[in-house]
Each structure stands twice: as structure tokens, then as C-alpha cells.
């Protein structure tokens, strides 16, 4: 409680409510993102067997790699949640600590994903190779781009917290960032359940 003496904690907590106009508006944006991702998933399901003689999912996906990515992203949801608990307790330094932990896990996830992409492209299987690869890079790349922008947002909020302290406007922005970050983990559940696990499964037993 001691780290933000100049602001009433109740105003900070009120700014982080889900039913403020800005936070509901951001939620409406996320719902439009649901539509975007469902169309990308649809394209993937339709094109997932169109290999055009190129590699199949079992040739390029690694269960081990996807598992590590999934664990990192899930753990980052927990650390972001704990940042929001610290917000409600008014502990600025704890929020910064949990945000940094979230960023480290997010960077680990993105680094893994980018090296996976580089590896696939080096094998001559870029997004121009087949319908399957176009849909794969389109879907997983869009999710990765969201994570990238989420990381920029986290860095921005850490800087704002450090410079301005835990003010009501900053608490309001953190509430939206938490929605964004948890939403990305939600989309990732759909990604590994639709793309990676069925793809690896189909290759394993044939």
C-alpha cells in the first residue's frame, strides 16, 4: 500500500473495472478479433490437407517445441493475473515485477515461434509453398504479431508505472492490457488444439 501514497486506492481500483466505458470498448475490439481469428481458423481447416506435394504438418511441427511454447504462455497468464492482484493491493513494485516476468515468458514464446518459422522456411517451406503453409503462417503469424504488440505494450506500461506511479489512468490501461494478454492465451489454446496436436497426430500413426 505504501508505494502509491498520492492516489486513493479506491480510484485506482475503480479505473480497472470491467464496466467502465473504455474497458468495455476494448472488450468489443477483442470480440472483433474473435471474428478475425475464427476466419483464419476457418481458412486453416479448409486448407490443412492441401500440401501440393510439399511438407505435411508431421514433417515440420515438433510436439516438444509446441509444448514449451504452451507452458510459457500459460505461465505468463498466471504472472499477469498476479500483476492485477498487486494492482488491487496498490503495490506498484510488485506490478512491475510481475509484468517483467510476463514479458520474459512472452519473449521466450515469441523467440521459440520465430525460430520455428525460420527453421521451416530454411527447409524450403515458406508460406508460398502450399495452401496448408499459407494458412498456417497466416494464422500462427497473426497470433505471434499480437504477442509482439502485447510485449511492446507491457514495456510501455512498465515505463509509465516507473515514471508516473500507479495512477487511475495507468490502472485503466493495465486492465485493458490484461484482457489483451489473457485473450492471446485463449486463442493459443485453439491454435494448439486445431493446428499442432491434430497435425502431429495425423503424421504419427500413418
Amino acid at each position, binding site marked *: 500500500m505504501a508505494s502509491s501514497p498520492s492516489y486513493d486506492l479506491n480510484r485506482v481500483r475503480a479505473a480497472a473495472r470491467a464496466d*467502465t466505458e473504455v474497458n468495455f470498448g476494448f472488450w468489443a475490439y477483442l*470480440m472483433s478479433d*474473435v471474428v478475425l481469428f475464427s476466419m483464419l481458423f476457418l481458412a486453416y481447416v479448409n486448407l490443412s490437407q492441401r500440401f501440393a506435394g510439399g511438407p505435411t504438418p508431421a514433417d515440420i511441427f515438433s510436439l516438444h517445441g509446441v*509444448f514449451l511454447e504452451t507452458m510459457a504462455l500459460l505461465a505468463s497468464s498466471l504472472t499477469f493475473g498476479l500483476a492485477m*492482484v498487486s494492482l488491487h493491493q496498490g503495490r506498484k513494485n510488485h506490478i512491475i515485477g510481475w509484468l517483467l516476468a510476463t514479458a520474459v515468458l512472452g519473449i521466450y514464446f515469441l523467440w521459440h515461434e520465430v525460430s520455428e518459422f525460420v527453421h521451416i522456411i530454411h527447409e524450403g517451406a515458406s508460406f508460398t509453398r502450399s495452401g496448408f503453409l499459407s494458412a498456417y503462417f497466416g494464422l500462427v503469424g497473426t497470433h505471434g504479431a499480437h504477442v509482439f504488440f502485447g510485449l511492446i505494450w507491457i514495456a510501455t506500461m512498465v515505463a509509465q508505472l516507473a515514471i508516473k506511479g500507479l495512477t487511475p489512468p495507468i490502472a485503466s490501461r493495465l486492465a485493458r492490457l490484461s484482457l489483451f494478454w489473457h485473450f492471446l492465451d*485463449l486463442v493459443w489454446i485453439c491454435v494448439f488444439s486445431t493446428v499442432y496436436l491434430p497435425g502431429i497426430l495425423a503424421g504419427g500413426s500413418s
Partner: protein
Amino acid sequence: MSHSDDATPGHAPTARGYVMGYLAALVLTLIPFGAVYYDLMSQGAILLVIAITAVLQLGVHLRFFLHLDMSQEQRWNTISVLFSVFTMFVMVGGTLWLFYSLYARHMMIGY
């Protein structure tokens, strides 16, 4: 929608809630990955396990991480999710139906 200038704190999330959600999500992740890794069941059964645990885990995330419920604070968020899910089913279901029907009519063997 009228709380922006209030000092009403709203529902405070707890560390216990996040840890419980994390553990539930962890179990629901380990089950499908384990099913694919150990490959003990038929392919259809494993796909069913993947689908069921995915839906359950989506519910866990919505409840424990995004705090959706029918309380005053979350009501409109929840209603907009329900509308989005409805929209998604119409678009995804309708398009899949259309494409598979098209493939069937063109007798594209092997799809």
C-alpha cells in the same frame, strides 16, 4: 457503463483464484499433449479428447482469468461474448457446410 468516474472499487481478483485457474488449465493442457505423445488410443478418440479439453480450458480461462460471469460488472462483457460465439458459429459452421458440400458435389476424392 456508468462507473468511469465512480470510486466503486469493483470485484478484486485474488491470487488464489489465478493459481486455481492456472492449475486447472495446466491439467487440461497436459491431458491432450499426453494423449498425442503416448498415442494409446485410436486417432478419433484422441481428437475427441483434444476437442473436449480445449473447450473445458476455454471455459476455465474465461472464468478464472477474464472473470466473466453475470455480475453487474461483467454482464455486458459476457453478453457480447455470447453474441460473438453465436456469430462465430454462423460464419464458421455455415462456411464449412458450404465448402464440404461443394467438395462433395465436385466429387473431389481425397479431401
